[in-house]
């Protein structure tokens, strides 16, 4: 399904919103949001809904004690990774932090393997040895899943370095949050990426809270698109709740990076509905704030409305899609519940090659 989404993205590329980004001053996303064709809206809907349902199920299974440790849900932020994946081409890599389930599903990794990793079973993508924050897929060019805040920024820059070294035309999408954006190695990486013109797009998922600390309490510069200004890295702020805006900005950024002009920063203004992790009651924000975001800006609802109103799909047709997504998620949960734990002999494997 992820492949379908990417194909749809490529086929129906939108010319709207293609303006030249200002090199020194970050700016707001183009006011004329580009439109999706029906195939793109359908693909985006399916992908985002899969992440939403998968994460809801994860939360449920965590509550049942099937998932342990840390578990960070992506609910609310779905448009970011889905829109960006639509702007990639085969061979482009992605890497992110610990809120990574959505990135894995959007890059086409098997939902069963992801869920079984969450439950720590042998059929998990890391054989049960990585858990929620540590999954990888060479086949899908997904480089993790990293639990140390900000570490993936240097690593993603290194993957882009390898692209440049090999001159393979690929771009590495490096995702991190508003919290990680204050880590020192982010700026060490920005410096090298621009210095060496590395093909990397930094996607800052600004969900407004670094764990429990609101952006304005932790960041001197809350316009994250400007965080590259002193390195001459262009950036823009994007409505990260609108998958079309994400996709259009993604295309601009990917084009910039792929054409040898160096890194590009996209600040995705998004929102997570759930707490930082499962153990976070999220008392640092009001219920009203969450409700307002859900009702007025929900990324999936926006597409659903277009499918019904612009593309004249019926509720029944949408129900079929919902049903298919639920089936994938239920199958994954079933597998992850009954798959055996790793064999004890796995304790000592995969330490060295």
């Amino acid at each position, binding site marked *: 399904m992820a492949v379908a989404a990417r194909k749809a993205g490529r086929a129906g590329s939108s010319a709207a919103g293609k303006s030249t980004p200002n090199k020194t001053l970050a700016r707001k996303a183009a006011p004329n949001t580009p439109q999706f064709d029906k195939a793109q809206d359908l693909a985006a809907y399916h992908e985002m809904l899969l992440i939403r349902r998968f994460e809801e199920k994860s939360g449920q299974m965590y509550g049942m004690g099937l998932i342990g440790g840390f578990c960070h849900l992506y609910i609310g932020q779905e448009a970011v990774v889905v829109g960006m994946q639509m702007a990639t081409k085969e061979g482009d890599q992605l890497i992110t932090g610990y809120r990574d389930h959505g990135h894995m599903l959007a890059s086409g990794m098997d939902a069963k393997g992801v869920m079984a990793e969450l439950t720590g079973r042998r059929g998990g993508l890391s054989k049960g040895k990585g858990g929620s924050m540590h999954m*990888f897929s*060479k086949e899908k060019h997904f480089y993790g899943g990293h639990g140390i805040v900000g570490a993936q920024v240097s690593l993603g*820059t290194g993957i882009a370095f390898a692209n440049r070294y090999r001159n393979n035309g690929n771009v590495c999408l490096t995702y991190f949050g508003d919290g990680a954006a204050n880590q020192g190695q982010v700026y060490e990486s920005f410096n090298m990426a621009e210095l060496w013109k590395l093909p990397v797009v930094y996607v800052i998922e600004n969900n407004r809270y670094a764990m429990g600390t609101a952006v304005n309490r932790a960041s001197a510069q809350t316009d994250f698109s400007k965080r590259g200004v002193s390195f001459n890295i262009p950036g823009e702020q994007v409505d990260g709740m609108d998958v079309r805006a994400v996709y259009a900005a993604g295309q601009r950024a990917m084009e910039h990076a792929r054409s040898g002009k160096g890194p590009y920063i996209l600040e995705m203004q998004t929102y997570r509905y759930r707490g930082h992790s499962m153990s976070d009651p999220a008392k640092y924000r009001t219920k009203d704030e969450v409700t307002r975001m859900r009702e007025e800006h929900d990324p999936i609802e926006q597409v659903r409305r277009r499918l019904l109103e612009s593309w004249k799909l019926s509720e029944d047709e949408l129900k079929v899609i919902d049903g298919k997504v639920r089936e994938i998620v239920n199958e994954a949960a079933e597998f992850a519940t009954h798959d055996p734990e790793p064999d004890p002999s796995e304790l000592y494997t995969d330490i060295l090659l």
Partner: protein
Amino acid sequence: MAIDILMPALSPTMEQGKLAKWLKKEGDKVKPGDVLAEIETDKATMEVEAVDEGVLAKILVGDGTDNVAVNTPIAVLAGEGEDLASAVASAKMPDLVAPPAAAPAPVSAPAPATVPAAPAAPAAVYDAGLEVPAGTEMVNMTVREALRDAMAEEMRRDGDVFVMGEEVAEYQGAYKVTQGLLQEFGARRVIDTPITEHGFAGVGVGAAFTGLRPIVEFMTFNFAMQAIDQIINSAAKTLYMSGGQLGAPIVFRGPNGAAARVAAQHSQDYAAWYSAIPGLKVVVPYSAADAKGLLKSAIRDPNPVIFLENEILYGHSFPVPVMDDFTLPIGKARVHRQGKDVTIVSFGIGMTYAIKAAEALEKEGIDVEIIDLRTIRPMDTDTVVASVMKTGRCVTVEEGYPQSGVGAEIAARIMEKAFDYLDAPVIRVTGKDVPMPYAANLEKLALPNVDEVVQAVKAVTYR
């Protein structure tokens, strides 16, 4: 009053250098700040500036003189209005040339260790004596040259190998270990980084995830503490966390441990630190041959390898086999010297104390066996245990700290595997449990010395 101009030291470890060229001639007036001459070491070329005002009365050491010891008078400066002839007459002539660097101990003991038939003896102890085929030509080279050759050979062999770090390219290496690599391989593969250890370590690991084989040079391992999160959390653990899908074939290398007079923040031995981490290999060579053979193996290794060098050893010369492709196995110790009375286990610069102690003890009739671990992780316990089963006594020598050090680990393993063979407790000779002091006398006290090794051996042999 005539003033002697002395051969300066350009670095904390410099003992001698070449007087490359005089830029002033006898009879020239000089004032403070004037460049008098250029001197060279194997690491760098530097200018000698005048500190005092006067007339260059006499040049004592001419252009192109090699091996001029630090503090040798190289010229005489006459004061204003002073008679040049009497100034020169009053100057003392230098004992011109320093002796060449001390000749090193032989590379390897010739014959394999014969382990007495003890029931619990390890099945097959690795025989380092067979690493070089008999009759192989040997050539003397410094550890620095051996490391450079290892990198150059591997870069010729595999286009995915590249070097990155501070000053590795245009400057030719802060310690000249990467000399000539930029010229041969170009800026794509020999990459100067900004001073940003955390960032470029992460960049190296990311590149390694994709299958490239980076050699990341740290100017010294002291600065790698900035990068230790990427080394441990990203490089060492990812293979395991990915269920074997994704590893990092990367070498982190650079000088480790105390140099000379650079105080606490620049004088730490990290062998024990990195050796505590599953997912890493840790190599600490002593000789040039080991440095070359092990670095080549480290570059080919699919795992992250910490390769700890030593600034003081860089300039030491050793015989190195002339072979097309000389590699050594990681994880195998080398019996440096055979003996029957006591086993000394050491590695890296610790070997210099062990070797001198063994020579001193030989004169007192104590026959010392020296094991050079070469690799700290995985540790070649079999070779150590086989030796201890033979001698019944063991002393460990390292510059690192005593608590949770490499010696502590060796002692524990010996206790677990050869307790019944021990005739005395294992004694550790280590750096002292203090931050490295700057004052010369305190620094000397903080490091291990030959006499401490001698005394430890006497203690375990009850002499």
